[in-house]
């Protein structure tokens, strides 16, 4: 049965031809010697796992959330109080987000101190910094969505700070707010950025990031 299924799929996909080159690349001994794995090399993977958890829990939240000033707060309260498992799903989304930022920062620190940004990996470092900035942008846009006091006022300060950048600041501020103040336009565009723009951009960049890691292999020993 298993054999038949395997053959049916393989006839149609020719997966076995590519499988070894996808999956059988060796991991160098300073990363894992078969008994012990150096955990600093898992941080990128941990960040990726958090992202997957965020996508899945985010899908469920999006089924109930309403991105307008009149309804946003009540829809979150509905999720917290009425929806089965709603409070848990929202809390998992919350904690996975914080965990992802922490993992990305630690991953960046690991890449820095192992010198893994050196040739030929410069481009992947640059993509990495973009991934880091996008990850924090996820946090910034997500913070407004509950439309409670903290959300509103923390975003007000964040936008003020962004508007203080010389020359481009006032445009960034207007662009973020969708006008001259935080209101319905701000909320709907933060929602669009948080659930469409950033996930698509991050996914594309992650694809390039992972392909480059496979092309280069993991960097050499640092000690």
């Amino acid at each position, binding site marked *: 049965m298993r054999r038949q299924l395997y053959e049916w799929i393989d006839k149609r996909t020719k997966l076995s031809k590519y499988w070894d080159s996808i999956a059988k690349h060796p991991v160098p001994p300073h990363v894992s010697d078969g008994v012990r794995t150096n955990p600093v090399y898992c941080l990128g993977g941990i960040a990726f796992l958090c992202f997957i958890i965020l996508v899945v829990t985010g899908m469920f939240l999006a089924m109930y959330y309403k991105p307008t000033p009149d309804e946003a707060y009540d829809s979150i309260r509905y999720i917290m109080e009425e929806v089965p498992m709603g409070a848990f799903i929202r809390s998992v989304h919350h904690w996975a987000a914080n965990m992802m930022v922490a993992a990305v920062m630690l991953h960046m620190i690991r890449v820095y101190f192992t010198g893994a940004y050196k040739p030929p990996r410069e481009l992947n470092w640059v993509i990495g910094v973009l991934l880091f900035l996008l990850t924090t942008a996820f946090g910034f846009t997500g913070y407004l969505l509950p439309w409670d006091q903290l959300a509103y006022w923390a975003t007000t*300060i964040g936008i003020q700070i962004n508007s203080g950048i010389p020359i481009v600041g006032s445009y960034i501020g207007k662009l973020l707010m969708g006008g001259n103040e935080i209101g319905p336009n701000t909320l709907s565009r933060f929602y669009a950025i948080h659930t469409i723009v950033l996930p698509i951009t991050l996914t594309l960049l992650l694809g390039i990031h992972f392909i480059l890691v496979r092309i280069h292999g993991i960097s050499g020993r640092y000690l």
Partner: protein
Amino acid sequence: MRVRGLAFFPNFLLREVVIMFTTAASIFLLASLFPASLLEPANPFETPKPIFPEWYFLYVYGFLKFWTWDIGPLKAKTLGIIISMVLFPLLLFLVPFIDRNPEVNLKRRPIAVLLGVITVAAVLFFTIYGIIFE
């Protein structure tokens, strides 16, 4: 390429899976013990105190409080924003192009290691500064 080493699949991935389960379990545990909060509805006419940004923006926040010096025509606030929001990310992007030392051994790149430690320490310092001076 390399011949030595452990095959990524399934040997290495199996070890990763253990770490992944631990990560997922900690997220679920944290979510059960400390649910996400929801304060009063937003009120544009009443500023609450204190307002904290997400913890990973606190270093910017702290730095803006810390930097109180005008330089020439540039106001302290503008300078603080330029340094923490423009120069710092720019510097991060440029790391591989600034550090041209091909050595990857920690012991043979003292300057890069020192700068890295200083940067991490500074980010931690300004994060704490941002909390204390709220």
